[in-house]
């Protein structure tokens, strides 16, 4: 009964929007769109914000995006949303800190402004969701491993904060897919709370216990970069693969240096642009499917160049 973009039927890929719904209509003059971000302390959210601003310029609307000062101030974020509703934005792009903390804001905004849920926690009552399919993040790394290590190996998962939607789905997608080959064994799946330092020391412990570890799959890039340092310190660079998620700049740099094996880029800048586009279309009265899935791709050393253009 719960809304999950990962399984939602009413869904369209963002690159199909123009094909299916025509060119982006011109918004009325003076339309303002507000962004309620999750936080700005992770580069991912900053890139998303960049996308919003870019989208605003591109489609001719003014976008203000704000973020609470830390990632676990749920009531604070709700107050922030309430405050922004009061300021009279035509559409609000919200990235809730948890699945439920912005629900009353959504109800309140219903009368005055349109609400679009942009990544990564999912408000079950949101009318529209723009973002990548979290479950698929895990799937793409698992598929790569299935293909590369058909004879099997030992895999460790570094999870995000316990109980968070993105962490759950990414891990689930990864594990479910990987189960196709029982020889690829998940030897550990432990949380590091999105934190570089924790990921680093957890990975060191795991490498000691499983010195021949084949690969780490990490729920985000910050943790993956911490894991890379642990792998380097254990002298296993190149032997133990490390995959991250998000596609932040630092992850690209690391991939280019040959340290991080790959990251599932969900193109935050592009996502931000799409979110603004979707808002503009909806404000113009278009009927869009409930979920607009943004692209994602497993970026590795050989494909860095191809994807880097989306970073601007």
């Amino acid at each position, binding site marked *: 009964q719960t809304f999950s973009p990962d399984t939602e039927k009413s869904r369209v890929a963002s690159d199909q929007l123009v094909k299916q719904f025509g060119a982006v209509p011109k918004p009325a003059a003076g339309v303002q769109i507000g962004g309620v971000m999750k936080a700005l302390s992770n580069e991912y959210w900053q890139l998303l914000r960049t996308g919003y601003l870019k989208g605003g310029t591109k489609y001719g609307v003014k976008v203000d995006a704000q973020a609470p000062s830390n990632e676990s101030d749920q009531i*604070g974020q709700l107050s922030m949303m309430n405050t922004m509703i009061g300021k009279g934005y035509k559409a609000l792009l919200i990235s809730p800190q948890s699945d439920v903390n912005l629900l009353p804001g959504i109800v309140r905004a219903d009368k005055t402004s349109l609400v679009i849920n942009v990544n990564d926690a999912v408000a079950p009552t949101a009318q529209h969701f723009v973002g990548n399919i979290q479950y698929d993040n895990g799937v793409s790394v698992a598929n790569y491993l299935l293909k590369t290590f058909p004879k099997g190996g030992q895999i460790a998962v570094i999870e995000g904060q316990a109980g968070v939607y993105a962490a759950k789905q990414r891990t689930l997608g990864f594990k479910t897919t990987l189960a196709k080959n029982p020889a690829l064994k998940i030897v550990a799946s432990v949380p590091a709370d999105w934190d570089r330092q924790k990921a680093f020391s957890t990975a060191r412990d795991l490498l000691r216990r499983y010195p021949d570890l084949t690969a780490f799959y990490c729920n985000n890039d910050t943790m993956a970069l911490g894991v890379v340092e642990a792998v380097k310190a254990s002298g296993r660079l190149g032997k133990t693969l490390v995959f991250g998620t998000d596609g932040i700049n630092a992850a690209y740099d690391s991939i280019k240096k040959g340290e991080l094996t790959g990251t599932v880029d969900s193109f935050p800048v592009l996502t931000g642009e799409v979110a603004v586009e979707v808002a503009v279309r909806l404000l113009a009265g278009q009927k869009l499917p409930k979920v607009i899935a943004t692209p994602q791709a497993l970026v590795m050393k050989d494909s860095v160049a191809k994807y880097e253009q989306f970073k601007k």
Partner: protein
Amino acid sequence: MQKIQPSPKSANRAALVERLREAGILAILLLGAVVFSFLVPSFFSVDNAINGIGLSAAINTIVAIGLTYVIITGGIDLSVGSTAALAAVIGADLMQRGTPVLLAVLIALAVGAVAGLVNGLLVTRVQLAPFIVTLGTMTFYRGLALSYTGGQPILSLPDGFKRALGGTVLGLPIPLVAALALVALFTVFLKFTRTGQYILALGGNAEAVRLSGINTNRYITLTYVISGVLAAFAALVLIAQLGAAEPILGSGWELSAIAAAVVGGTSLSGGKGNVVGALLGALLLSMLQNVLTLMGVQAFYQLLATGVIIIGAMVIDRYTRGR
């Protein structure tokens, strides 16, 4: 000799000076409100006061009342956020399974009470430091809440419950009304009951209270129970607003509530504190957040501004009180 004894008048004057502490923050609050009303166009509105400031202040106030009690005895309760989450998911789960709302609410409050009782007993009977005890239970209760729901949120709460705690009465949102009522109740309780007086006395000089033949352990434990129950109640108010309960609810509550209490004049070394101060502290912090958002201040600068304003308010408070 008569002349040099403190007269009743000067005793009243003393009480007045004590009250100035609250007045100081009230003044800062009002001053802030006036300044902001000029600076920020959309600040001065009933809607903003209620929805922008009121709700977050209400939850924080309710939690801060309990923490004020605990802190007055010289203790601390870091587990409030986790207790809140545990009570919320158990209560919500029961409602979802069809338990009558009132019963589910009572059970949730009881969960809060038990969580507080465990803290209290570990502090008084086993004589562990409150910080360590509640640091441990903070983690433990969170683990309980998460494993209880398997990490999933509980989404569909009965409308009756949502209306009862999330609605409005006389145009005022119930959370705010509840917070104000609790402030009144616990102010009276602290000042006009024997128990409240013992709690105050305990923080001032626990040994002296024990020598007066009073069972100090009982009263210390009681403060943790109060803190647990109020955290549970705050959680219920919140989930009624949100319409859903999740096990990660309440993280960071301890810090905001301690901040509200301390800004409101409660001393972390115990013996001094008042519930109205906690309310004022919570309002001040919420107003700050609200104004910074309205002004469109970016997150990084919000942090800078928040830091400066918290310290600034305390400095003003310090100098208006004199000395």
